[in-house]
C-alpha cells in the first residue's frame, strides 16, 4: 500500500525535482512580484477609468456659470460669447448631463436649484479665460467663468501616464520573475546534473527533460502568484473603495460592496496563469540551452 503510493509518486518524478526544486524561496519571491503585478494591474485599470471619466467631464475646458439665470439671460450670454473671437464654441449644458457630473459631489440633485452652465471651447487653449469672464460680466451680471476644465485635462493626462507606467511596471515584474525562475532552474540543474545526464544517456529527448523542469517551475510560480494576488485583494478593495467618489463606482448600492465588485477580477484572475506561463517558458528555455552542451 505505502510501497505502491511511493512507487507512483517516484515514477512521475524521475529527476527528483520535487526535492531539488522546493522550499519557499521561489514561490515567496513570485508571490511578492504577483502582489506588485496585481497592484499595477489595478492601478492601470483605475487610472484608465479616472482618465476616461475626467476627459468626458472636461469636454469643455472652460465653463461659464449663470447663477439664478432664466432662459432669456442664458440666450443673451450665449450670443455674447459666440461673438467673441477667442471663443470657438459655446454650448449650454443640458440639465441631465450637469446632474451626472455633479453626482459624485452632491449625491442626488433632486430639488437643488442648479445654475445654468455654458461650456466653452477656446479657439486658442492658451487664451486667458479671465478676459472672457470680464467681457461677459459686462453683458450678463453675475456670470462666473470657471477654468477647472484645464486642470481636469491635466489630471487626465497624468492619469494616462500613470496607466502607461503601470504597464511598464507589469513588464518589469514579469522580467524579474523570469530571471528568478532562470536562477532557480540553473540551481535545479546543478543539483540534478547527474540525473539529467543519466536520463539524457538513456535516450531522453530535450523536450522530456525540459518539460519536467518546466511543469515543476510553472506550478511553483503559479502557486506563489496565487498567494501574492490573494494578499493584494484586500488592499485593492480598500483603494477602490476610497477612489469610488471619483470613478463613479459605489454610487447606488453600499460602498463596501462597490469596492469588491469594482475590482478588476478578470485581470487579477489572469495573474497566476500568466505566472505559470512565465515560469514554464523560462524553465524550458533555460534547460534546453543547458542541454545543448550535451551531444
Amino acid at each position, binding site marked *: 500500500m505505502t510501497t505502491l503510493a*511511493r512507487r507512483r509518486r517516484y515514477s512521475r518524478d524521475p529527476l527528483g525535482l520535487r526535492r531539488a526544486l522546493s522550499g519557499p524561496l521561489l514561490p515567496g519571491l513570485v508571490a511578492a512580484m504577483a502582489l506588485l503585478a496585481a497592484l499595477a494591474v489595478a492601478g492601470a485599470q483605475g487610472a484608465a477609468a479616472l482618465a476616461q471619466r475626467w476627459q468626458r467631464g472636461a469636454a469643455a475646458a472652460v465653463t461659464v456659470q449663470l447663477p439664478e439665470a432664466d432662459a432669456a439671460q442664458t440666450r443673451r450670454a450665449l450670443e455674447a460669447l459666440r461673438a467673441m473671437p477667442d471663443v470657438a464654441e459655446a454650448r449650454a449644458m443640458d440639465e441631465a448631463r450637469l446632474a451626472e457630473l455633479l453626482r459624485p459631489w452632491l449625491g442626488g440633485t433632486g430639488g437643488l436649484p442648479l445654475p445654468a452652465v455654458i461650456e466653452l471651447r477656446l479657439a486658442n487653449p492658451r487664451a486667458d479665460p479671465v478676459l472672457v469672464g470680464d467681457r461677459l460680466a459686462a453683458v450678463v451680471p453675475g456670470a462666473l467663468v470657471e477654468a477647472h476644465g484645464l486642470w481636469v485635462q491635466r489630471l487626465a493626462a497624468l492619469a494616462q501616464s500613470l496607466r502607461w507606467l503601470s504597464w511598464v511596471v507589469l513588464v518589469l515584474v514579469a522580467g524579474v520573475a523570469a530571471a528568478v525562475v532562470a536562477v532557480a532552474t540553473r540551481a535545479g540543474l546543478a543539483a540534478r546534473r547527474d540525473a539529467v545526464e543519466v536520463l539524457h544517456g538513456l535516450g531522453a529527448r530535450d523536450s522530456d527533460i525540459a518539460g519536467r523542469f518546466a511543469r515543476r517551475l510553472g506550478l511553483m510560480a503559479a502557486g506563489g502568484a496565487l498567494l501574492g494576488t490573494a494578499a493584494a485583494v484586500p488592499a485593492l478593495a480598500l483603494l477602490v473603495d476610497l477612489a469610488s467618489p471619483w470613478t463613479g463606482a459605489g454610487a447606488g448600492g453600499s460602498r463596501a460592496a462597490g469596492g469588491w465588485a469594482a475590482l478588476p477580477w478578470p485581470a487579477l484572475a489572469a495573474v497566476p496563469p500568466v505566472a505559470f506561463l512565465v515560469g514554464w517558458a523560462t524553465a524550458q528555455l533555460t534547460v534546453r540551452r543547458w542541454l545543448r552542451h550535451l551531444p
Partner: protein
Amino acid sequence: MVRFEAVGLRYLGSGPHAGAWGPEALTDVTFALPRGSFTWLLGPSGAGKSSVLRLMHLAIRPTRGEVEVLGLRLARAPRNMLPAVRRRIGVVFQDFRLLPYLSVFDNVALPLRLAGRPEASLRADVTEILRWVGLEAKADASPAELSGGEQQRIAIARAVVTRPDLLVADEPTGNLDSRQARRLLALLREMNRLGTTVVVATHDEDLVARFPAPALFLHEGRLHDPDNARGLHADSATDDDIG
C-alpha cells in the same frame, strides 16, 4: 552494426585549458563489429577504451572520420535523431550511475517510461528482468542499500530491460570482487547468446581468459588487432564468437 572508419577524437580542454583542443585521444581507429558479436575492448588505462565506448553509445561525436551505430552516421547526424538511437543501446558503467532517490524498481523501469510504455504493461517486464539478475526481492530497496555487485546487476537490468540491439559496458567489473565479476560476465554473455551485440572494455586479464572472445586492443589511442576482430575480413569475424 557498429563501424568505425578512420576515427580521430580530441577532447575540448577544461579548467586551465578551457576552449583549447587537447591531443588526439583516438587516432585512425577503424573496425567493424557484426550483429550479434561479443567483443572485448582491451588496453592499459588511458589507451582510449572509454572514448571508443562513448562514441558507440553516442555520448560524444568524433572529431574526424565516421562512426556508424545501428545505421546512424554519427559525425553529421542532426542532434534530434540521437535520442531514438540511444534508446536502442544499453550502457553499463563502472560506477553504476543509478539514481539514488529512486527505488530499484523505478531505476530499472526508467528506460521503459522514457520510451512511453504504459505503467500497466511495464511491471511484468521489470519484474522479469529483476528475476533474471536475481534481485526480484530487492525491487523496493534503495540502491544505496545494495552491495556493489548487486548495484551493478541493477545497472545491467536497466541497460537490458528494453532489449537493446547493442550493449556496451565500460569496466563493469572494476568495483566488484572476482566472484561478482564472473557472475556479471555470465549475464553479459547470456544477453549476447540471446542476440544482443555486446562490447566490454576491461583491463582485467583473468576475466578475459575465462571468457575468451575476439578482442580489440588499444594502445595510446591506436588500434592493434591481434585477433583480427576489426571485422575487415568478414569470414573470420564471428567464428570465435561462441568461445
